[in-house]
C-alpha cells in the first residue's frame, strides 16, 4: 500500500515536471516571436554551440565511421557482400547513427554547459541583475541558447555524417582498394532524398530538446552550488533520453511515409 502511494507520488511529480517543461517551452515560443531580438547573443551562442563543438563532433564522427566499417566488414565479406559496404554504411550513418551519436555528444557537451552556466548565473543572482537592468533574461539567455542549439545541431550532424563516411572510406580504401570516386558513387547511388530529409528534420528536434532541457534545468536551478551540479547532470541525462524518444517517434513517422 505504502509502496503504491510512493509510486503514485512519483508519477505525479513526473507529470508535474513534464507540465513545467511544456510551460517553459510555450514561453520560449511566445518570447521568440516578440521583439527586440537578441541577434548579437544568438550569434555568440551559435559560435559557442556550433563552432566550438566542431572538433569533438568531427573526431567522434570520424571514429564512428572507421569503427563501424571495421566491425561490419568481416561479416559482409562472409556473405560475399563486400561491395555493398559503402551503401550499407552510408544509409546507416545518414539515417540513424550520425544524427543520434552527434545528438548524444551534444547532449553531453552543450546540455551540461548550458545547464551549469545558467545554474551558476541563477545562484549568483546574475539573472536577477539582468532583469533589474531592463533586460528580459529569458529572451537573452534562454531563447538565444535554444535557437542556437536548434540551428547548429543539423549542421553538426551533416558534418559528422560526411566525416564518418570519410572514415569508412579510409577503411575501404586500405582494406578493399576502393577509390574515392567509386566510394562516392556507391554512396550517392544508394542514398535517397527520403534518407536524408527525415534525419535532417529530426536533428532540429534533437537540438531543440537539448537546448530546452539545458536551459530549463539551469534557469530553474536552486540549492546553491550543489544545485548547479545537479542541473548540469540532470540536463545531460534527460536530454540524452529525449534524443532516443524523439528518434523513436521520428522513425515511426518516417516509416509511415516509406510505406505510403
Amino acid at each position: 500500500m505504502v509502496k503504491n502511494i510512493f509510486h503514485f507520488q512519483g508519477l505525479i511529480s513526473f507529470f508535474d515536471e513534464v507540465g513545467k517543461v511544456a510551460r517553459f517551452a510555450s514561453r520560449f515560443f511566445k518570447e521568440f516571436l516578440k521583439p527586440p531580438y537578441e541577434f548579437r547573443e544568438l550569434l555568440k551562442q551559435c559560435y559557442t554551440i556550433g563552432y566550438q563543438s566542431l572538433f569533438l563532433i568531427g573526431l567522434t564522427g570520424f571514429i564512428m565511421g572507421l569503427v563501424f566499417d571495421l566491425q561490419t566488414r568481416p561479416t559482409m565479406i562472409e556473405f560475399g557482400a563486400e561491395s555493398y559496404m559503402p551503401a550499407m554504411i552510408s544509409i546507416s550513418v545518414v539515417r540513424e547513427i550520425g544524427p543520434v551519436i552527434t545528438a548524444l555528444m551534444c547532449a553531453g557537451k552543450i546540455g551540461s554547459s548550458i545547464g551549469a552556466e545558467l545554474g551558476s548565473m541563477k545562484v549568483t543572482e546574475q539573472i536577477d541583475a539582468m532583469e533589474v537592468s531592463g533586460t528580459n533574461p529569458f529572451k537573452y539567455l534562454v531563447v538565444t541558447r535554444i535557437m542556437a542549439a536548434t540551428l547548429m545541431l543539423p549542421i553538426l550532424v551533416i558534418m559528422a555524417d560526411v566525416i564518418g563516411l570519410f572514415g569508412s572510406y579510409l577503411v575501404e580504401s586500405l582494406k578493399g582498394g576502393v577509390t574515392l570516386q567509386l566510394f562516392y558513387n556507391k554512396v550517392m547511388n544508394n542514398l535517397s532524398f527520403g534518407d536524408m530529409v527525415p534525419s535532417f528534420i529530426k536533428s532540429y528536434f534533437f537540438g531543440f530538446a537539448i537546448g530546452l532541457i539545458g536551459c530549463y534545468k539551469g534557469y530553474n536551478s536552486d540549492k546553491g552550488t550543489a544545485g548547479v551540479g545537479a542541473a548540469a547532470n540532470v540536463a545531460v541525462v534527460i536530454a540524452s533520453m529525449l534524443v532516443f524518444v524523439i528518434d523513436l517517434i521520428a522513425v515511426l513517422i518516417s516509416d509511415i511515409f516509406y510505406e505510403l
Partner: protein
Amino acid sequence: MLSTQQKLSKSNDHGDFAGPPLIEIRDVHKAFGENHVLNGFDLDLYDKENLVIVGKSGSGKSVLLKCIVRLEEIDTGTLKVLGKNIPDLNHQELDELRADVGFLFQGSALYDSMTVRENLQFPLRRHTERMQGLDEENLILTTLKSVGLAHTVDMLPAQLSGGMKRRIALARTLILRPKIILYDEPTSGLDPITSKEIIELILRIQKEYDTASLIITHDMDCARVISNRMIILINGINYREGTYRELAALDEPNVKAFFK
C-alpha cells in the same frame, strides 16, 4: 510585544529630507507558502536620504529589496517607487522605472563571461534613450574612475578581488545615473579595511550623484556611518525606527541585540 511598531522620530520629522517619499511602502505582506516574511511592513525613503534596514538573517530584508524592483511580487499592500505603484506597472513601464533604481547585489552579480567594459555596457545598451548625446566609452571610463577602478576596464570578473567586484558592481549600477540605489549587504564577505573603503565610497557616490540609498546590512559599523535613519526589521514589520543614536539608546533586548 514584538508586533508593536514604533517610530522614535516624529512621523513627519525627516530632518533635511523633505518632499514626497521616493519609495513609499504601506502594509506590505509577502509569504512563501506558510512562511510569512513581511507582515505589514511600512517604509518611506526620501530624496538624498540614507535609510538602513537591519534585521536577523531570514527576516525578509533581501525579499523587501526584491519586492521594490519587482523581482518578487508582494501579496498585499501598497508599494510605490517614484510615485508609481509597482504591482500595476507593465513590463515596459517597469523596465523604465528600473533604470532609475540601481541595485547592488550581495555577491556583486557581475556577468562572469563579460569583461568589466561589457558589464557596464550591458545596461547602457538596454536604455539607449539615456545615452543620447553621450559617448559610451567616455561614460564607462568616467564611471569606473568614480569608483577608482578605471584600469580594470578590460579585465574579467574572475581577475578581480571581492572588494573590486563590489566597486565594479556599484559602477554598473551608477552608469544609468539612478535616483535611488538599493544596497543588499554591501560589506558582507569583505575584510574590515575593504568594508571601510566601500562605506566611504557609498557616501562619496551619494554626494557625487545625489542619490537616495536604501541599505540592508548586518554590519552595525556600516549602519552607524552611513545611516540618516534606521529601521529594525523583526517578524516582518518595522519594529523600531529612528536614528542610530536613538535606537542604540533603547533599553530593549530585541533592539540591544543588534548593538552589542
